[in-house]
């Protein structure tokens, strides 16, 4: 765990993409993802991928890190492609016992692969270039109108913020306790199922106890510093849209419209 990239890790860098307002990054990512879904022709899909590649290059994050962030998903991606390839009926290309590969299957797999790959890169780009803090601040601002209908936006976002903040710590703790129990002969991979579940308790119980304890401490610490929810609370760094933010959103929106125009004409 120590030697790999943590899922959702933020990589600090000074680039156009990093400087974008988190709101426009979220909206842009959503629009581009929509465009990926709506695209019907392989040319379009390739074009979107090309565009996303350009965005990636401007983010100044090395390709190796993009690859590392993508790595955990490659297996699922390959599996999805395989199923798509084998399960689509149509004109047969190769037949081997019960395995039938069809022209349609290959096309569908190629199209699916391009789309999923683009989506994954987009999602990773968002988490690589946005701090969790900026992300939740943007969510809070974007959902603020819903507060009028009684939705506790600030509280929900705070809960999300705190959970995001403590995921790495929780993982670290679980890892440490797992190691400690490993030293007491707890093998989590071998033995009968019942015994394995019992041994898993040796990790789960301490981790739960520690998190409940920590939750209580954080609540006390927040209250003792005068935290009482959204009321009268202002932000240190107000979010502000710049010219490039609008360019980015318009670009994504344009991409979306372009794809919509051809929608329905394809398969």
């Amino acid at each position, binding site marked *: 765990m*120590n030697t790999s990239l943590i899922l959702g890790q933020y990589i600090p860098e000074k680039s156009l993409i990093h400087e974008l307002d988190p709101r426009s990054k979220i909206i842009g990512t959503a629009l581009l993802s929509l465009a990926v879904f709506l695209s019907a022709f392989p040319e379009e899909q390739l074009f979107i991928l090309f565009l996303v590649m350009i965005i990636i290059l401007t983010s100044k994050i090395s390709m190796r890190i993009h690859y590392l962030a993508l790595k955990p998903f490659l297996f699922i991606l390959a599996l999805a492609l395989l199923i798509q390839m084998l399960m689509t009926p149509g004109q047969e290309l190769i037949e081997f016992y019960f395995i039938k590969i069809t022209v349609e299957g290959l096309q569908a797999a190629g199209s699916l692969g391009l789309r999923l790959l683009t989506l994954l890169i987009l999602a990773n780009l968002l988490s690589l270039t946005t701090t969790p803090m900026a992300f939740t601040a943007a969510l809070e601002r974007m959902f603020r109108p819903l507060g009028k209908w009684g939705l506790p936006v600030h509280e929900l976002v705070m809960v999300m913020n705190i959970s995001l903040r403590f995921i790495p710590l929780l993982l670290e703790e679980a890892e440490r306790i797992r190691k400690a129990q490993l030293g007491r002969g707890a093998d989590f991979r071998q033995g009968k199922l019942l015994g394995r579940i019992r041994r898993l308790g040796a990790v789960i119980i301490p981790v739960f106890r520690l998190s409940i304890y920590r939750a209580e401490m954080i609540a006390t610490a927040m209250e003792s510093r005068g935290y009482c929810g959204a009321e009268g609370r202002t932000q240190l760094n107000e979010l502000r849209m710049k010219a490039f933010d609008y360019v980015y959103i318009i670009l994504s929106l344009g991409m979306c419209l372009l794809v919509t125009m051809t929608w329905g004409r394809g398969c």
Partner: protein
Amino acid sequence: MSLYLENISFTYQSGTPFEKTALSGVSLSINDGDFVGITGGSGSGKSTLLQVLSGLLFPFAGKLCLDTEAINPGQKKSLNRLRRIVGLVFQFPEEQIFELQVYDEIAFGPRNLGFSRSEVDERVREAMNHMGLGFEKYSLRHCHSLSSGEKRRLAIAAILAMQPQILLLDEPAAGLDYEGWQALLQRLNYLNREKGISIVMVSHHYQQLLASCPRIILLDKGRLILDAASSSWLEYLDFLMQQGWELTASQELVYRLMQKGWEFASSPRSPEETAWAVVDFIRRSRK
């Protein structure tokens, strides 16, 4: 049973922008009956070294040997052998406690090893005895009803029930009051002297280690800078000063008195010993 490290290096998150070298070129040996204290500033690689010694982290470069047998990361067998011989007590080990009763908590390890009921019983009794937890008084008590010092000794007893020959402890004194620490230290000394278990402990508390461990290892930024007997620190005082090592208050006192022409026959390891050495010198100079 001796443990040898040769030119060990370790890097965290290697290949990412968060790359951090924790150990570089560390060589040392832990021999039968050793009582070693490892210290250094924060980020000096103390905890990493301890995890390498216990076979939990694998060094990127260098060799780890148990007696004459090299421990290989690929070979589960030799790794298991190392883990059976070395017991690691993590920092705040009481956080691992998960059973309701003291007996079950300590029996967890031996049960995992597949011992019979009577063997488990025997190991639990012995481990509790080693840590000064009387079997009749404690075995059926609830773990959470113990004091923090008792909880820590319980967690260590749970490791001792695995019957390791080398016991590694990460910051064993952290969060304990003076009495709790003294009680624990006394048990560790007993294990070392009577049972021949080698003890290696890591702490940022230089004074505490100097007073309690016969052998001291100093780490600085992942490098081993000193491996020497704590009872002869006067001999390498110059080296410590050269390295910019922060002396303990009583070492500082001895150093200043020596500059004024005082003579010390031996190196006092604790504030108490320093006080006695000062008294001794005054008495001798009066005669």
